[in-house]
């Protein structure tokens, strides 16, 4: 194999040239012959009864092909958008999953809820005509505040108190007793602010029905096209999976928001048969703000008990988590199995209890967003540990180290269900402390004070559960799907390889990383490997990309398929070299007869498989193998991020003066791509801590932060360059030893930054630490000092 392309090499990305030359193909770049355009009329009210919809004027407007409402979908038995994970509450009852119809039938429940669709010759005609639809709304009391949801106007008939579930993990009585006996108890309340994912490519869909074949094709912005096909066919549209092809071409970012099955692609698919034309919809950015699934939105009370030596004894966490107006595709598992199970962090806390009340509010649905539950868990753990350090006077790094799970304690069973497979938490922290010169902080702080600035430093020793997930485990917890991954590795007769993977890149660079894996396994140049993904018409059933699972699960499936290729190759090689199969050794693309100089190259074996003139008797021709890989456990990436900030007390501005990250992702296939993932994750975490905040106006229920003029995205001048490094503790249970890297930055960063800012300020503030909040805190400090 040529140098610089195998596992561990920072190979330049194969997909880049098409993106850099404007030849990427995103959903909105596609146009189908004869297509019409859809525009969705959305509710202007947060909660209202629909007493009537008059579409007559819109239907006769210029260019209009059809206008449909929820009644039309009902007539055609179009179902409710399901939630694919049933959480069982503390009383053994399933969660409440009220109907979520693609177009509202009787009520609207958030601003942006879908009321009707207009399909017209052009998009502007559809949009203009939508203004002519008269909807008779009867406004109902609404609530957008998570903390007030239990006492607010009931939104769904079958969800009293707007409660989706009241769930717990652990023994509350035992934890209360442990806390009562603790030497010190730190109490900490927090809000994990609601975020809007904001992939740069807005969601889009083209439904295209072929009346001859009686088949639909859906082009859409999806992270998991097979899941979209499964849900649409089995639960919503009542189709055979053989009759719907879902293809997600280049996808311009997702961060979770493109996992879910939304109203728009459902309606475009259904309507393409109704109007007998392809139907295209592309979100305007304001629609993305209104109707993409949002993230986070927790209100939490936490208590940490410590003994006299600073050892953690017990952690109690009570959280209210917003689900928004309806349960999105995987919403229910995010604040439970992806959150409470991570509350041990990197620590030996022996006793942990979590209670989560998931509630409905008159806001857009909330679901997985980069990290999904795990950033919320890390924020609880790493903030309360920091506060405990301040209260007990123990250095924050020292307090963490005293409580780290020891390197020799793995596999480590936490009190919250997970078994950590491997880790070296002290190693990563020590490296990070050294990189940032932790010992020199006091001198830097003094120097900052000399020029009127407040300096702070903050640590975050995060953990995540990735490689989602062992099917039997998630099945026992309520998941409606298996979370394995598939791969088909096909040698073509002339020696190139086509790989069909169920993982689907939306920016991660699968075409490069997976090529490196295949190149290494089969000993062929990376340029001879083609990675095919994102199309149910070409790729075997797969589960898609989320939860940092592509390499750990999808990559493992590819390795297994390559193993099968090699296994078959040995039989062919043995025949050609007139040796026993048992005597054939394989290494880096070459089959050898052990102890001889006889060898055959992989390419020749592949050619022979397709031109089997001299071939083992009884062996099938062809060299094309499929593998399904179901992980044995989650993977557990972990590490330490440290932020150092300077605060200007006169303006409230926070400058991130340094950021170090030491992550342990196990084995790394492409360090360049991994670094990029870390950078991007940190930027989103910094965004949450410093800038981003989804705000609904409590009085009107309107989304106040509904555009880039109002919702503060991190821009280049808000961020520093990052200094990042890794430690390597291989994952012991997958063939590549990899753990996943996509979410780490977003998980680690908010706590690191807020620990740094509150360290500088000497008082608590909530995310995001906007200039105004920081300035007010500084004024408060100044006032206190003067008093």
């Amino acid at each position, binding site marked *: 194999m040529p140098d610089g392309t195998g596992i561990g090499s920072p190979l330049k990305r194969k997909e880049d040239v098409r993106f850099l*030359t404007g030849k990427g193909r995103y959903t909105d*770049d596609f146009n189908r012959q004869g297509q019409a355009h859809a525009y969705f009329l959305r509710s202007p009210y947060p909660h209202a009864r629909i007493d009537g919809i008059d579409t007559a004027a819109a239907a006769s407007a210029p260019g209009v092909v059809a206008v449909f409402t929820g009644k039309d979908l009902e007539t055609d038995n179009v179902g409710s958008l399901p939630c694919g994970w049933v959480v069982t509450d503390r009383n053994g009852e399933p969660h409440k999953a009220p109907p979520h119809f693609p177009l509202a039938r009787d009520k609207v429940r958030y601003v942006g809820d879908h009321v009707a669709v207009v399909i017209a010759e052009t998009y502007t005609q559809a949009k203009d005509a939508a203004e002519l639809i008269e909807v008779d709304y009867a406004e109902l009391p609404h609530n957008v505040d998570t903390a007030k949801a239990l006492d607010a106007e009931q939104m769904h008939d079958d969800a009293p108190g707007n409660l989706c579930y009241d769930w717990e993990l652990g023994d509350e009585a035992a934890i209360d007793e442990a806390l009562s006996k603790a030497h010190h108890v730190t109490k900490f309340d927090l809000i994990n602010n609601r975020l809007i994912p904001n*992939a740069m490519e*807005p969601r889009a869909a083209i439904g295209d029905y072929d009346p001859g074949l009686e088949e639909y094709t859906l082009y859409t912005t999806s992270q998991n096209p097979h899941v979209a096909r499964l849900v649409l066919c089995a639960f919503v549209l009542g189709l055979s999976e053989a009759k719907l092809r879902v293809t997600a071409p280049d996808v311009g970012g997702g961060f979770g928001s493109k996992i879910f099955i939304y109203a728009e692609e459902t309606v475009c698919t259904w309507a393409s048969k109704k109007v007998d034309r392809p139907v295209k919809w592309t979100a305007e950015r304001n629609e993305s703000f209104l109707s993409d699934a949002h993230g986070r939105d927790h209100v939490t009370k936490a208590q940490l008990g410590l003994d006299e030596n600073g050892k953690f004894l017990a952690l109690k966490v009570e959280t209210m988590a917003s689900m928004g107006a309806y349960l999105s595709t995987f919403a229910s598992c995010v604040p439970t199995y992806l959150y409470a199970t991570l509350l041990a962090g990197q620590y030996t806390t022996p006793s942990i209890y979590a209670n989560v009340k998931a509630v409905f509010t008159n806001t857009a649905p909330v679901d997985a967003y980069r990290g999904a539950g795990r950033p919320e868990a890390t924020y609880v753990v790493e903030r309360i540990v920091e506060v405990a350090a301040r209260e007990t006077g123990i250095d924050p790094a020292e307090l963490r180290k005293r409580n780290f799970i020891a390197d020799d304690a793995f596999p480590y069973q936490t009190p919250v269900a997970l078994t950590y497979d491997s880790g070296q938490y002290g190693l990563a922290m020590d490296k990070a402390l050294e990189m940032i010169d932790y010992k020199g902080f006091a001198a830097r702080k003094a120097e900052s004070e000399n020029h009127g600035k407040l300096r702070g430093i903050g640590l975050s020793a995060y953990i995540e559960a990735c490689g989602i997930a062992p099917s039997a485990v998630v099945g026992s917890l309520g998941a409606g799907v298996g979370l394995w991954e598939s791969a088909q590795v096909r040698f073509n007769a002339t020696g190139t390889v086509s790989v069909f993977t169920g993982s689907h890149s939306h920016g991660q660079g699968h075409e490069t990383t997976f090529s490196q894996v295949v190149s290494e396994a089969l000993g062929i140049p990376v340029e001879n490997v083609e990675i095919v993904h994102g199309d149910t018409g070409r790729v075997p059933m797969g589960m898609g990309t989320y939860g940092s699972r592509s390499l750990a699960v999808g990559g493992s499936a590819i390795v297994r398929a390559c193993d099968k290729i090699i296994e078959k190759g040995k039989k062919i090689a043995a025949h050609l070299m007139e040796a026993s199969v048992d005597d054939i050794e394989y290494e880096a693309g070459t089959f050898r007869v052990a102890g001889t100089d006889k060898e055959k190259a992989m390419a020749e074996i592949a050619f022979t498989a397709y031109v089997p003139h001299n071939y083992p008797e009884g062996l099938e021709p062809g060299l094309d193998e499929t593998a399904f890989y179901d992980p044995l456990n989650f993977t557990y990436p972990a590490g330490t991020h440290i932020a150092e900030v300077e605060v200007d007390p006169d303006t409230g501005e926070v400058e991130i003066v340094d950021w170090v990250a030491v992550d342990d992702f196990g084995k790394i296939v492409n360090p360049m791509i991994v670094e990029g993932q870390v*950078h*991007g994750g940190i*930027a989103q975490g910094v965004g949450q801590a410093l800038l981003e905040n989804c705000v609904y106006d409590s009085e009107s229920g309107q989304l106040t932060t509904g555009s*880039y003029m109002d919702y503060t995205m991190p821009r*280049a001048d808000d961020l520093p360059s990052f200094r990042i490094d890794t430690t390597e503790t291989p994952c012991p249970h997958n063939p590549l030893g990899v753990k996943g890297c996509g979410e780490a930055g977003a998980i680690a960063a908010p706590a690191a930054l807020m620990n740094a800012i509150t360290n500088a300020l000497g008082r608590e503030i909530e995310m995001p630490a906007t200039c105004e909040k920081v300035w007010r805190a500084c004024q408060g400090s100044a006032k206190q000092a003067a008093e």
Partner: protein
Amino acid sequence: MPTVSMTVNGKAVSHDVEARTLLVEYLRQNCALTGTHVGCDTSQCGACVVHVDGESIKACTLLAVQAEGAEVTTIEGLAKNGELHPMQAAFKEHHGLQCGFCTPGMVMSAVDLLQKNSDPSEEEIRDWLEGNICRCTGYHNIVKAIQAAAQDSRS
């Protein structure tokens, strides 16, 4: 319906368009140049940056008819004779892109920066990119790529 004529990537084009057609819509729909992207509706994200008469501009801030007679360069017109423009090559070399959606606007904007300032500091680069939003890279490698392209163009 007014007729609009301009030169796009060195090629004369002319179409009848609705007067309200934005330049970005004209490029994507009439010229089938889909490399220029639409990422927002408030002229904030910069995914649609192209060059009009040599200057970078958000193609959503201009009506097609306002570009009458102009020389327009889109991301598709940047590479010459199959060779990536040095800025495109620098983005590839330094992993300055992930999902690729903001990339055309980023690259077109960065090319214009170096036309105006051949030796920008990190701070000047970050300031210049204020009008281009990237959600994937954290900007780290975009800044690195532009620095490298600047250095290469001077050496």
